[in-house]
């Protein structure tokens, strides 16, 4: 990322101006301490073996990958380690959150959350708009309630308005859209109650359909422009007398719960009612009334805050209070219920400020501990951070940054599927809502890093690439080894590694070849694909 240093310079200047947008927000420091204390009270005792606080090198690589989805440069790394200020960790977190890559990184995360569950591949038409719009909103510091309301009430061209993404991904279908809104924003999988009362939870079949009754007037229809094809999410309030036929997905005035014994029958007309509070709307309410009321009720519910803080916590600390992150609710047990409620409550008081939340989590001891292997079930959670597999975008950013490969601008921004980033995602992408220990690595992934031509051109030293330049600039082998380690793994080589590599160099005989082999090995190491 060639602009990396430039924007940091800008941000540093800006952050000294100390703009306090939310004067009345809960204190980050105090909240982090209280969350740690609550976790300690609920889960730890004198015997608990807590991992120590992680070192600066590991911390810096961790926050960079977590917050902006990229690697710190060797210069950044050195400056951080030599910075003696006790506040430097808070400061780097603040700086990263002010960078434009923060919004982009998390917009891509949410894009994957939404589009991993698309009904049809054509829904990807909306992916770029979602990424762009959400990046902007996140960088501007929009509250999560406002962002969520935008998704729930969205209308318009899916290529122009990114908040149409969830409805588009579900093809405007009433039940599917309902299920996704509940899963993503409340973390409650009420769709299990679509056909029968929920097997484990309290939800009744009617309650699912009452929620669905907020969406019957929503539809998706094709838009044909002069040069391109797109779709539009729309809400309709005018209906003919014609009864909607089976499988017809045009908007209808009211939602009908199908008769399970007679799928061809019209079913029962259902009134919109929000299952968590029983707030309801009368028959005949307009689409706008339905969706905006629901957005208001949903985003002020406690599960809305809990679902979000649990998800963010899980991404950053490596395990959630509830797992999986999209399957919680009043019938599920949190590993540390007081801590998660506390954090959710403070998040609400912060006006659903995502930057506040990330700052707070990054400030906790739980986040800053050294990582240990993912704990086996039954063991005490949060005694350490957990190594996290990089998502496709951060991994690609890391490879491109380490090797200084420039990402070519897309020829046609409309064609999401054709670009390099998308091809990378085809191989490395996964649904971020799935529990991380069930996300498996694959042989095509290994093959891509080992043999992909673009990456390997950058590993093979030449006048025009980074390795060629470094081989010329740095005559000392020890120093060059350190440089490559900082670049790829953001750490110094160990003594063992250093001596092994010097011996390797002698054995190979050819300096250029030996360093190419080293760079190739670093890019292909498990450590590169993870953040510790």
């Amino acid at each position, binding site marked *: 990322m060639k602009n990396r240093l430039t924007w940091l310079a800008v941000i540093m200047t800006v952050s000294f101006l100390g703009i306090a947008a939310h004067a009345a927000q809960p204190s980050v420091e105090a909240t982090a301490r209280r969350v740690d204390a609550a976790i300690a009270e609920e889960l730890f005792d004198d015997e608990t073996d807590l991992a120590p606080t992680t070192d600066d090198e590991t911390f810096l690589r961790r926050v960079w990958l977590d917050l902006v989805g990229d690697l710190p440069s060797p210069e950044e790394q050195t400056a951080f380690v030599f910075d003696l200020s006790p506040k430097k960790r808070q400061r780097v977190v603040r700086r990263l959150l002010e960078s434009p890559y923060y919004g982009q990184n998390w917009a891509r995360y949410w894009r994957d959350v939404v589009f991993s569950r698309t009904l049809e591949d054509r829904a990807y038409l909306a992916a770029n708009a979602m990424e762009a719009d959400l990046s902007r909103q996140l960088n501007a510091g929009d509250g999560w309630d406002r962002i969520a309301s935008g998704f729930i009430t969205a209308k318009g061209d899916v290529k122009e308005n990114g908040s149409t993404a969830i409805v588009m991904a579900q093809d405007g279908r009433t039940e599917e859209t309902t299920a996704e809104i509940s899963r993503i924003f409340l973390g409650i999988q009420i769709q299990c109650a679509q056909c029968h009362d929920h097997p484990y939870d309290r939800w009744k079949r009617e309650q699912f359909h009452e929620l669905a009754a907020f969406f019957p007037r929503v539809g998706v229809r094709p838009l044909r422009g002069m040069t391109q094809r797109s779709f539009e999410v729309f809400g309709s309030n005018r209906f003919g007398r014609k009864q909607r036929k089976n499988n017809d997905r045009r908007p209808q005035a009211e939602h009908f719960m199908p008769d399970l014994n007679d799928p061809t029958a019209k079913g029962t007309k259902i009134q919109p009612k929000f299952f968590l509070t029983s707030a309801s709307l009368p028959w005949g309410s307009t689409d706008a009334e339905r969706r905006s009321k629901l957005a208001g009720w949903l985003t002020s519910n406690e599960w809305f805050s809990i679902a979000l803080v649990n998800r963010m916590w899980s991404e950053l600390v490596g395990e959630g209070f509830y797992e999986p992150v999209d*399957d919680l609710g009043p019938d599920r047990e949190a590993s540390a219920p007081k801590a998660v409620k506390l954090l959710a409550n403070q998040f609400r008081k912060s006006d659903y400020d995502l930057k506040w939340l990330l700052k707070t989590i990054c400030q906790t001891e739980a986040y800053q501990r050294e990582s240990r292997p993912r704990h086996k079930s039954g063991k005490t959670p949060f005694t350490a951070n957990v190594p996290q597999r990089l998502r496709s975008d951060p991994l690609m950013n890391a490879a491109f940054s380490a090797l200084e490969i420039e990402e070519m601008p897309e020829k046609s921004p409309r064609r999401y599927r054709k670009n390099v980033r998308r091809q990378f995602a085809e191989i490395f992408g996964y649904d971020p809502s*799935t*529990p991380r220990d*069930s996300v*498996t690595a694959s*042989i095509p992934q*290994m093959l891509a890093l080992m043999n992909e031509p673009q990456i390997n051109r950058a590993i093979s030293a030449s006048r025009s690439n980074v390795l060629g330049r470094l081989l010329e600039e740095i005559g000392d082998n020890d120093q060059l080894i350190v440089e490559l380690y900082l670049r790829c793994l953001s750490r110094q080589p160990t003594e063992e590694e250093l001596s092994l590599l010097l011996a390797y160099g002698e054995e190979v005989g050819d300096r250029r070849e030996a360093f190419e*082999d080293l760079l190739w090995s670093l890019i292909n190491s*498990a*450590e590169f694909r993870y953040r510790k």
Partner: protein
Amino acid sequence: MNPRLQHHTNIAIRRNQVVGRRDFLRQMSAVGLAAGACNWTEVIRASADELRSRGMACVLLWMQGGPSQYETFSPKPNHSNGGETKAISTSVPGIQIAENLPYCAKVMDKMAIVRSMTSKEGNHQRATYLLHHGYLPMGSVKFPTLGSNVAHQIGDAANQLPSYVRIGNRLANSGGGGFLGVDYDPLILSSANRPPENTTPTTGRSRYERRLKLLSSLQNDFASGSGAQVVADGRKLVTSASEMILSPSMAAFDLEKEPAGLRTQYGEGEFASGCMMARRLVEHGVTFVEVVSRGWDTHQDVFSRTRDLTAQVDQPIATLITDLKQRGMLEKTLVVWMGEFGRSPRVNARSGRDHYPKAFNAMLAGGGVSGGQVVGSTNAGGSEVTDRPVSVNDLFRTIYHTLGIDADEENISSIGRPIKLVDGGKVVEELFS
């Protein structure tokens, strides 16, 4: 450990996602039958599982866009709906197919045509999904596609090649491993005339092996800390991936190894190469190969366009069947020809036919299916199924049955819901009589 593309890579036991009995077993053998974790009935069931995989394989010939039944296996020359397409006799007296398929006509004795396929999905995206998964798309469940389920159930875990290969680039809505995980995603070949992506090492072999050694020796630091499992898994993957691309089995992806005479028999074009590759892959132990032909959405000029398309697929299909037969592989290899739906009885104003899921056709051969027969029929104009309707679920159940897979086998989705391979439907028994 054997290099295996599909399986195995998740060496860490998945705590939240018990995927199916076979995975369970694989893990069991990996950790050496943990005491008490597996009771005796499960062991019995396990051996039955192993017995079922007797080297069965499946080749799916997918006609993207919805091939016209009238212009392929179900001509109606005596009705106005039949248009200008004539019927020709086949190697089986009494069975006629469209004149567009002269090569297939000669191997009719090995093929079974289902003329009574029926479904309700007339939208490409959803129908493509349906005819690949046996389910309609549902946001909350990522169903595995047919090939992934087959690979999961009977794929040969010890084979060096992947169990599921799709030839002909990515295909929208055709799915992948779904909740079974990426291990069961298809290996995608954009063309049968090129090796798979990223399988050509960028250095010579000895240097490549030197690099692998270096990589392995450098990972101790992470491995001794929090990355123990991660590094171990990564090492196994690197080993498997390298062994695969350096292995002689990669020759399976090289059509140049086929005699020129046989290449001529398969005919020309991507689809012909794909069919030949499919046979090579099955020979090398691949369980499920999908070969995609595109362009069947003939809203205009259905007659001339289908003639062009059948010219690309007729000879390869027939040669694939005879080639498999001659090598003694047809009995264990099911060949399925289908698309997402059929085309309308009425020829529209642009001499095209529109989408028609209500009555369409499919063709099956090999794998124990009795050839030389037609299942089901439609009325004179072909607009309604009049005899022996076959639903998508029936067809899927039949495919699994042919491959020795119990279609009632349940996988557990990521949120703990049991999902059968096929929900409902009946095996089309006539196909085996």
